[in-house]
């Protein structure tokens, strides 16, 4: 928990990111241009938002596999509320956000009230929420959103994509909550030793419930941005998002066993992954080949972490 130790992991990661950037820039002259970087930032926002909440979840020693499904469900509901129910778009957005947040709350409720392991609980809701999205949409996509709506996914503020601002602010807020507030302390304590946290008067279940609800909210927010960016809703949106988010969090130095991790690490993990994806694609690696690299980087990072832990005698 000492600042020095955290600093070490993040420093390594930051150096790695910079090296990757330099190498990728030398492989393709299109990589290191303001346009490309800002565009990559735009693509990063959805995974990024989810990863921030996922950091909290994993720091408590849990996991949330249902985020991709929540994103899909929220997107579908947004379209349905607007097009089929006929609500004004702002109201539909608000309601869809509320539903996504509620989906996250349900995860937390199942996990805390019935002591279902988070892995299993969210695996079940992964199927359930995606199933609801498919059932409600019946594979029909919703299009034809008004022009102003595309601002969230395609607009720019002072030359920077709108959602990159959102991600930036969210990262800042998340970093402060996890690093500097009593809530953050409680999060770490629960992940490191849940029993001792409870014996110290920490409200363990309430904290977890907030975190899973927050995870649902972030996925829902990502859904709105996603829909706005691609101008359509489909029920398979966000499939596999959980993997990207978990990869970023774990790569960022958060222990999958809980108790350790930072938002800055997650942010660096995100940037590294996005840079690899984009850079490799620009240098001619075929689209999905980059996923292999990410899988390897994920296992490699944890392996190094585990060996490191063992050497410390943890």
């Amino acid at each position: 928990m000492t600042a020095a130790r955290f600093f070490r992991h993040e420093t390594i990661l930051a150096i790695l990111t910079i090296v990757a950037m330099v190498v990728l820039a030398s492989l393709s002259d299109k990589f290191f241009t303001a346009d490309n970087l800002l565009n990559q930032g735009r693509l990063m926002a959805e995974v990024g938002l989810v990863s921030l909440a996922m950091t909290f979840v994993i720091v408590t020693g849990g996991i949330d596999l249902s985020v991709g499904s929540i994103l899909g469900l929220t997107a579908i509901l947004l379209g349905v509320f607007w097009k089929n129910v006929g609500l004004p778009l702002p109201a539909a957005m608000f309601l869809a956000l509320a539903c996504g947040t509620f989906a996250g709350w349900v995860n937390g409720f199942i996990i805390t009230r019935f002591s279902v392991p988070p892995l299993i609980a969210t695996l079940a809701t992964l199927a359930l929420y995606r199933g609801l999205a498919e059932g409600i949409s019946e594979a029909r996509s919703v299009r034809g959103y008004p022009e102003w709506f595309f601002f969230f996914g395609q607009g720019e503020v002072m030359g920077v994509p709108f959602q990159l601002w959102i991600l930036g602010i969210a990262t800042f807020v998340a970093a402060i909550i996890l690093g500097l507030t009593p809530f953050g302390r409680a999060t770490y304590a629960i992940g490191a030793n849940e029993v001792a946290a409870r014996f110290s008067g920490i409200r363990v279940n309430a904290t977890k419930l907030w975190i899973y609800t927050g995870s649902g909210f972030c996925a829902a927010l990502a859904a709105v941005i996603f829909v706005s960016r691609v101008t359509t809703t489909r029920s398979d949106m966000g499939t596999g998002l959980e993997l990207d988010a978990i990869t970023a969090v774990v790569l960022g130095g958060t222990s999958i066993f809980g108790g350790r991790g930072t938002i800055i690490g997650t942010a660096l993990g995100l940037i590294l992954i996005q840079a690899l994806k984009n850079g490799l694609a620009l240098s001619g690696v075929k689209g999905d080949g980059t996923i292999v690299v990410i899988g390897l980087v994920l296992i490699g990072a944890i392996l190094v972490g585990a060996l490191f832990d063992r050497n410390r005698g943890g």
Partner: protein
Amino acid sequence: MTAAVLSPGRSNLHRFLSGYGQEIVVLLAIVALFVVVGATNHRFLSNTNINSIFAGNAYIAIAAIGMSMVIMAGHIDVSVGALIGVIATIAGTLAVSDYPIWVAWLVPILFAIMVNAGVGTLVAYTRIPSIVVTLGMLSILKGGLISATAGEWISNLPPEFMIAQMRPFGIPSAVWFMVALTILAALFLRYTDFGRSIYAVGGNMEAARAAGINPERTVIGVFALHGLFAGIAGILFATQLQVIQSTVPPNLELTIITASVIGGVSILGGTGTVIGSTLAAILFACIGSALIFLNVSAYWLRAVLGLMILATVLADMIRRRRDT
């Protein structure tokens, strides 16, 4: 069941019912489904439909056998869907090349065993949770598959390669495989030391060590076995249709895990039977088919599955709480 004397106070029937409670529930559900849906729509009971329910989903049941063992040992594998996709593609590629057919069948299975033994080794010795290792494996397999094939379909498969479409004694070979492998696995789990040690390791790892079992070796063995079953499932999947799509079947791992869990395998490890998981796989297939015959949109199938897995898990947790 000649051992009535050995168990005073409880009838064999009682013991049978209490030992296979979950399986019997699933079996009854299947029967009820056939009766109810069959009564409303006779075509549900037609040969074609029953064939497609059983033969078309046998590979899921077979993969669920291996998954059940992994879960019994206290682990999970989310990469099995991608693995099956990769196996199918390797098998198809070999089949359209000049290799003998048995090479096209066996090489992918060996590949699956090796991949999963590797996963098992990582899980057993580094103590990295199986969810993380298999998530990583999922993306490696998936990415590898897509970038290697560029999504091209494999067609013109030689007819002698299509093992799933063969019909010994009038019953699709996929069904034979499903039945035979389920029985073999059940016998294996019951009559071998290794089979019993899976339950022991999943139930109480340190006690297993104290009883002279090597938990690491057991975990690696379980993953390798899981690879074997996934391999066979992959071959059946590959030979079902005239083309191999070279993609990862979406959410296949989820269906397989769900079959294992609903079939009576506790998600906390150490319990379960493979008969249950096979029955559960059949149940899903029946539900999927029944929804169509009842004019319910197939789009709701996954929501139904999600609800079922959630209900099973909650019931399991509540039962456990009552027990302690």
